[in-house]
């Protein structure tokens, strides 16, 4: 029997510190995310929300826990994979330094992973039968991309945001309405009791790059509506605004992804990233896909938001082709898809 390939994944590109152990790119043995972990023993208490970006303090305990929960030792790992961009340079470097140190001391290969590829790969975990090619919508707090996934390591970006990311629009509208952070779940909850047709917010289309997104004008339109109610000293219809705003975002995300799938004759669509957790998006995308004979895949919520299992999954397809990274690997905060150069 062929030996399982065991990869350790490390993710620290933004808010979350995460480590995971995944076999053959598809099966998760452990997936630890610091903000969810009660590191009682190490810290004598729960890690507060404010410390979510204290990667330096969290990275080693999180890796230890991932290894322990997987029921293996570090020596059992075939390679160490880590996100090297896009993200925040300071936080990326914490994960990269840890990964390099482990790889060097154990004399194991180091694999650099693009965070966006990680989000896409989350679908390989939740749907083991899934294979490229397909069209993937990657939408999160920091990214909004439509990607033609031509192979496990072959990507073409068809569209991207020209201003705000989709998840960012949710966060900012939630901020204006006083609904707290993160904005996605809060707005989704309010939207349930609202009328999605109450307000007609703009849906921006570009003629030169038809799959590009713009959410900044939508954000301003929603803020203007809120101000109008405030100026007239009328109660702000929060639920209707949330439902109408969400409706506009979902319209654009689904519309652009579907046209990409039709144009590129893809009968498979995947969604990924934190916004893929939104149930209105899932519902509308499912309806449209069903109507057009397209299969739809999306990961569970736990694999939509930033996590290291998706990193180890993406890394597997580099491992089997022996695409290692050099020990002088550096963080690339503005990394684009298909710029991997390894």
């Amino acid at each position: 029997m062929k030996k399982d390939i065991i990869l350790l994944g490390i993710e620290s590109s933004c808010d979350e510190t995460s480590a995971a152990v995944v076999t053959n790119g598809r099966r998760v043995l452990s997936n630890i995310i610091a903000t969810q972990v009660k590191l009682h023993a190490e810290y004598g208490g729960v890690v507060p929300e404010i410390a979510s970006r204290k990667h330096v303090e969290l990275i080693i305990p999180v890796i230890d826990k991932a290894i322990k929960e997987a029921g293996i030792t570090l020596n059992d790992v075939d390679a160490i994979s880590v996100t090297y961009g896009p993200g925040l340079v300071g936080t990326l470097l914490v994960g990269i330094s840890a990964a390099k140190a482990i790889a060097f001391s154990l004399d194991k290969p180091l694999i650099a992973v693009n965070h966006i590829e990680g989000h896409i790969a989350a679908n390989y975990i939740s749907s083991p039968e899934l294979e490229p090619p397909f069209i993937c919508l990657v939408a999160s707090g920091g990214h909004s991309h439509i990607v033609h996934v031509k192979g496990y390591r072959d990507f073409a970006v068809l569209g991207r945001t020209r201003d705000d990311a989709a998840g960012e629009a949710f966060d900012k509208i939630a901020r204006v309405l006083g609904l707290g952070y993160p904005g996605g779940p809060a707005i989704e909850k309010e939207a349930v009791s609202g009328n999605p047709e109450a307000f007609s917010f703009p849906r921006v289309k570009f003629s030169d790059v038809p799959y590009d997104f713009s959410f900044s004008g939508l954000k301003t339109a929603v803020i203007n509506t809120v101000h109008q109610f405030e100026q007239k000293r009328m109660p702000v219809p929060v639920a209707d605004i949330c439902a109408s705003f969400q409706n506009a975002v979902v319209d654009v995300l689904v519309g652009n992804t579907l046209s990409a799938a039709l144009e590129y004759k893809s009968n498979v669509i995947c969604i990924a990233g934190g916004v893929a957790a939104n149930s209105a998006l899932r519902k509308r995308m499912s309806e449209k896909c069903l109507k057009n004979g397209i299969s739809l895949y999306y990961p569970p919520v736990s694999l939509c938001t930033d996590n290291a299992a998706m990193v180890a999954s993406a890394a597997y397809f580099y491992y089997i082709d022996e695409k290692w990274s050099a020990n002088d690997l550096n963080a690339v905060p503005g990394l684009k898809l298909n710029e991997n150069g390894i």
Partner: protein
Amino acid sequence: MQKYVAHNENDTIELGQKTAGLLKAGDIVALEGELGTGKTVFVKGVAKGLNIREHVTSPTFNIVHSYEGGSITLHHFDVYRVSDEDELFEIGFEEYLYKGDICIIEWADLIKNMLPENTIWIKLERTDENPDRRIITIRGLEPV
């Protein structure tokens, strides 16, 4: 101090573009303004004025986006999500400031005491009458 009226997004972009013509390497520009007043739109104009071809996208999530490729390298910050000075230090904020490039910082009022005295301050405000109109106040720079 100068006050400008922008009647729409294009006016804000144009003012950003003209401002870029007055900026020199090493300048630090602080932007103040509520959500949706056009801070990122203004930076799009500055980037255009610096001959940066890339689309300027919101740096809210990643805190900083850097654009090389133009006449002067531009670092575009959004410090809204930064919880304290330690965190700014961790991302090398001071190194960016004194690199000799141009830094533009959204929500700069939140980190006032970390910015040098010669910082150029630009404030974008809504007006009650017209939802598209902005009053843009520039301090520390000659008139555009």
